[in-house]
């Protein structure tokens, strides 16, 4: 069971929901936690894992042999990302633009291009109590998060429960995080901003044909427009986390609130049961429709 916690809007509570859900399940199931927000992984603050493994993430980038290169420019013509280009008697490589597809080396008529490793980040793993913890870290200054996320997701054990904390927004890194998930749990706030960005997330998740549900965080602020939207779209609201000062104080100290506040571990276990039910139900509905 692969559950990705996502949100169109930053700061809605993805990490709060992901870490508390993972901790609630950790004693009951084999749980892996993945922080896919590789530009800014922060679940470590709440889960406090003991890290015992680190590995580099490399992307293949072209290296041009100036002795062999005839400056024909075919590599640059082939490159969709302008990562390689010929100017006069120079073929230049721009590693930070390269997506590592290797097309330039394939089209080179004189085999002047070899592919070499370019480190763009790293993966780390360890244990946090009963949890298996994993995160990805994109090196500062490197622009491409997606290859790190896809490498991170290779660690998913399909037989266990995996909880993925997605980056915010709806761009490539989010889609990469959601891809292959059994369920998308979208966290939002009951405000106009929350609703606007929730709609963007819902569009992406529907496009990916992943069953989905909503968690309303800071319930009690704003108004009922998120609720009305979910009702009209038939999207289940699976949990409401109140706008509560104690929760905010625990958050500010890096303490997962289920560890301190009575009844919440049980509520997150119920949330998981609802997710399992909804995942199955929505999958079946889709089959009936098609």
């Amino acid at each position, binding site marked *: 069971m692969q559950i990705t916690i996502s949100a169109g809007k930053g700061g809605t509570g993805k990490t709060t929901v992901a870490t508390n859900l993972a901790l609630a399940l950790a004693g009951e199931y084999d749980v892996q936690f993945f922080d896919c927000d590789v530009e800014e992984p922060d679940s470590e603050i709440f889960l406090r894992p003991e890290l015992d493994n680190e590995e580099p993430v490399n992307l293949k980038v072209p290296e041009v042999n100036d002795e062999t290169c005839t400056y024909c420019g075919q590599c640059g013509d082939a490159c969709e990302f*302008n*990562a390689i*280009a010929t100017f006069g008697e120079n073929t230049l490589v721009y590693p930070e633009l390269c997506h590592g597809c290797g097309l330039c080396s394939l089209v080179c008529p004189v085999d002047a291009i070899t592919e070499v490793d370019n480190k763009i980040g790293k993966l780390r793993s360890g244990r946090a109590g009963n949890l298996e913890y994993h995160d990805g870290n994109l090196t500062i200054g490197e622009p491409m998060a997606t290859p790190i996320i896809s490498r991170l997701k290779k660690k998913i054990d399909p037989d266990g429960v995996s909880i993925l904390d997605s980056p915010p927004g709806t*761009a490539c890194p989010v889609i990469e995080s959601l891809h292959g998930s059994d369920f998308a749990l979208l966290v939002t706030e009951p405000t106009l901003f929350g609703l606007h960005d929730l709609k963007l997330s819902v569009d992406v998740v529907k496009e990916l044909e992943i069953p989905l549900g909503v968690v309303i965080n800071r319930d009690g602020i704003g108004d009922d427009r998120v609720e009305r939207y979910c009702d009209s779209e038939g999207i289940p609201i699976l949990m409401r986390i109140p706008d509560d000062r104690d929760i905010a104080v625990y958050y500010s100290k890096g303490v997962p609130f289920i560890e301190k506040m009575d009844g919440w571990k049980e509520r997150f276990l119920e949330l998981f049961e609802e997710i399992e039910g909804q995942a199955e139900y929505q999958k079946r509905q889709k089959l009936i429709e098609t």
Partner: protein
Amino acid sequence: MKIAITSLGEELSSGVDGRFGRCDYFVIVDPESLDYEAISNGSKNAVGGAGVEAAQTVAGSGVSAVITGNVGPNAYRALSSAGVDIYTGASGTVQDAIDDFNDDNLSLTQSSTTRGGRGKRRR
């Protein structure tokens, strides 16, 4: 001799576009005869590498110099390799830039003058 000026429009009276890789047009002009043509910048909305792609367009048009507002590191490296002179800090109209070029009021740039983009924002 031909030079390229980054421009907001297709005429000599158009304003200079301060951006290189994502400018609207390149006005390719002979600074003596003032014969010119404008080419639309196909790299304007490139996801990434607009500077490199624009440099290819400009170098391919056979100019010996570029006049613009700022040039990023990727475009600078590309234009330098192509042997194209780069003049930055231009403002006003395309005609103003040509006059400044003819009067020797522009100085050659020896490095990139802006950090350069990270492509279009994807978040």
